[in-house]
C-alpha cells in the first residue's frame, strides 16, 4: 500500500503552485475577467514553461500523478483556464484538448480561446467542436459557452475516466483554497470580543466542510490509481469521485460563504472569485443530480468494485 502521490508529483505540484503565485496568484483570474481575450496569454505560457502540455497522462502512472498535482494547484489559484481539459487531449486526433460533454446543451468553459477541441459524451461518441457559441461577459458566464458539435466516431469511451478524474483534481484544489481562506478568516475576524473560530457553531461547520474535502482527496487518489493500474471499472471510480467532489463543493462553498459573512460575496475577497469560477467545474458536464444519475445507471446492480465484489450473485 502506498496511498500518496509520488514525491516527484508532490514536488511538481508545489513548483506549480509557486510559479502560478509568482505569475499573479489571485490576480490571474481577475486579469482574465478584465481582459477576456488575453486569458490564453495570462496562464498558458506559465504552464507551458512547467511542461504541462507535454505531460502524457495516459503514458505512465508518474505522468498521470504529475498531471493530477498540476490540476490541483491550478485549482488552488482558480486560474480559470481549462488546464485538465488540455492535458487530456486525445492522442489520435491532433486537437488541443478533450471536453466531456452532456447530451443536452453541451457546453464548456472554453470561451474566447483559440484552440481546437474534441468533445466526448458518456456514450463514448466523439465530436469535433465545430464552434463555440457567443460568450457572455465572464463575470456572468465564467467563460462557459455552448458548443456546436459535429459527430466524429464512437471511440472515446477509454478516454472518459481520465477526462472526468483530472477536472475533479482541479475542483479539489479549489476546495483546498476555500477552506484555507475560511480558516484564516475565522481566526482573524472577531465578534463579541473573540475570534469567530472560538464559537462551536463556527467550528462544527468548518469540520463538516473538512470531512467532505478530505473524503474527495482520498477518492481522487483512488480513482487515479484505478486508471494507472488498470483496475476494474475505472469509469465507476471516476463517476463516484465526481459525485463526491460536486457534493463536497456544495458543502464547502456554502460553509465558506456563511462563515465569511457578507464580505465573502464582495470582490475584495478571494472567496468571491474562487466561488464564481468553481461553478463550471461543478456544473459541467453535469451537476450533482446528473452525476448521480450517470453513476446509478453505470453501476446497475453490480455496485462499485470493493471488498465484496463478486461475493453475491448478480
Amino acid at each position, binding site marked *: 500500500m502506498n496511498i500518496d502521490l509520488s514525491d516527484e508529483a508532490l514536488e511538481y505540484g508545489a513548483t506549480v503552485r509557486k510559479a502560478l503565485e509568482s505569475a499573479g496568484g489571485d490576480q490571474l483570474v481577475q486579469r482574465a475577467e478584465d481582459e477576456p481575450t488575453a486569458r490564453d496569454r495570462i496562464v498558458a505560457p506559465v504552464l507551458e514553461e512547467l511542461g504541462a502540455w507535454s505531460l502524457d497522462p495516459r503514458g505512465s502512472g508518474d505522468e498521470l500523478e504529475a498531471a493530477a498535482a498540476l490540476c490541483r494547484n491550478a485549482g488552488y489559484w482558480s486560474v480559470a483556464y481549462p488546464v485538465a481539459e488540455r492535458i487530456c487531449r486525445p492522442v489520435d486526433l491532433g486537437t488541443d484538448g478533450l471536453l466531456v460533454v452532456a447530451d443536452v446543451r453541451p457546453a464548456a468553459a472554453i470561451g474566447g480561446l483559440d484552440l481546437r477541441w474534441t468533445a466526448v459524451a458518456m456514450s463514448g461518441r466523439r465530436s469535433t467542436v465545430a464552434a463555440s457559441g457567443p460568450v457572455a461577459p465572464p463575470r456572468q458566464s465564467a467563460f462557459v459557452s455552448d458548443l456546436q458539435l459535429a459527430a466524429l466516431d464512437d471511440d472515446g469511451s477509454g478516454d472518459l475516466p481520465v477526462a472526468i478524474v483530472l477536472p475533479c483534481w482541479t475542483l479539489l484544489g479549489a476546495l483546498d483554497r476555500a477552506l484555507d481562506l475560511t480558516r484564516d478568516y475565522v*481566526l482573524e475576524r472577531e465578534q463579541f470580543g473573540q475570534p469567530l473560530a472560538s464559537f462551536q457553531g463556527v467550528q462544527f461547520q468548518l469540520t463538516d466542510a473538512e470531512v467532505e474535502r478530505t473524503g474527495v482527496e482520498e477518492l481522487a487518489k483512488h480513482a487515479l490509481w484505478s486508471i494507472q493500474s488498470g483496475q476494474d471499472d475505472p469509469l465507476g471510480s471516476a463517476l463516484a469521485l465526481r*459525485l463526491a467532489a460536486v457534493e463536497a463543493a456544495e458543502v464547502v462553498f456554502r460553509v465558506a460563504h456563511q462563515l465569511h459573512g457578507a464580505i465573502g460575496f464582495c470582490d475584495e475577497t478571494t472567496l468571491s472569485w474562487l466561488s464564481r469560477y468553481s461553478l463550471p467545474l461543478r456544473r459541467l458536464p453535469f451537476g450533482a443530480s446528473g452525476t448521480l444519475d450517470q453513476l*446509478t445507471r453505470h453501476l446497475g446492480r453490480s455496485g462499485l468494485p470493493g471488498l465484496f465484489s463478486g461475493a*453475491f450473485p*448478480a
Partner: protein
Amino acid sequence: MDFDMGEGVAALRGELRALIREHIPTDFLGAFTSDPADLETAQRFCRLLSDRGLLCMAWPPEWGGRGASAWEQTVVREEMWAHHEPRGAQYMGVNWVGPTIMRHGSAEQQQEHLPRIARGETIWCQGFSEPNAGSDLASLQTAARRDGEGWLVTGQKIWTSYATMAQWCFLLARTSKAERKQQGLTIFLVPMSAPGIEVRPIASMIGPHHLNEVFFDNVWVTEADVLGTVDNGWQVVQEVLAFERVGIARYARCERLLLWAPSALGDRWDDLPDELRARWARMLTHARRARLLAYKVVDMQNRGRVRPGDAAAYRIAVTRLDQESADVLADIVSLSNLTSEAATRFRRAVEDHWRYSRASTVASGSIEIQRILLSRSLLAAR
C-alpha cells in the same frame, strides 16, 4: 500509488472468509442476542482463531502473536465486522485490554491475563462511563478509598457492554482529589465475581447485552489489581482511546449489506424507485470514501505520523455512513416483499444494522467530540 494490500493480505482475507463460511451460521447476527447459542458460536470461533494464530495476530511473538502488519490487522477488523463480529466481545481484549496490560501491567498481571486473552477465554468489560460522566469522562465519581492493604470501591458505571457475561472489568476509579480532574484516577483490573458487584441489564432498542449498569458496593481490590501506578490512570485511558482510534471497521458491514441488496431482491431490484437506487449508489460512494479515510489513518499510524484530526474526520464520515446506509437499506427492504429464506436473512441483517447504527454517533466518543478534535486540529497554529 498502490491501494493493493498485497497477496499475503489477500490470502489472509480469503482464509478468514473460509473460516467464517465453515464455522459461522449464515443467519448469525452477532454474539449478543437472546439466543445463548450465538455466544457459544462466538466463543468456539475465538478458540478456533486462537488455535490458528489468528486471534492475536498483532501481538508480539512472546505473547502468542506474530506482529501482524497494520494492513493485516485492517483486514481482520474488516472481515470480522462485515460478518457481524463473530469474535463477540473478544475484540476488546485483543485490541486494547491485552496491549495495555503488555505496556503497563506487572509481570503477574501479564502472566494471569495475556495467555487467557490470547486463547479467547476471557470476556472483558470497560468500566468507564457513569451517569454523570459520559463525554466528560474525567468527572467520574466512582471512588476507591484506602482500606488497609487495599481499597474499597463504591460507585456506579453505566452503558457497560457485555457486563452480564464478562469475567473481568477494566475499571477507572478516583483514588484522590487533585487540582485537575484528570489527576487522581486509577485503573483497576477487577474480577466481576468479586463480592459487591451487581450488574443490571438495561433493556434497549439496540438488543440485549449491549447496555448495562454496574454497581460497586464496597468492592475490595488490592495493590495487585492496580494497572500501572496509582493516580495516573488518565494517561492509560488516553492510550486505550488511541488503540480505538481507527475503531470498528463499520464501513465493511455497510459495503457488504449494500452489495448484498440487489442479489437479495433478485428481479424485484428493478422495480425499486429510481430515486432509491440512486441513494444506494450514493451510499456505495460514501462507503468507499469512509474505507479510504480509514486507510489514510492506518497509513499515518504505520508511519508514526498520527494526526488526531485525520482519525476524527474518518470517525465522522464512517458513523454518518453507518446511519445513512442503514436508512437506505431499510427503505429498500420496506419496498420489497421478501419471502425467500435468503431474502429473510437479508431483511434481518438490515434490521440489526439499522438498530445498531443508531448508536454509532454516540458510542466510543460521540460525533460532537470528534468534531471538537477535528476543529482543534484544523485551527491549530501551522
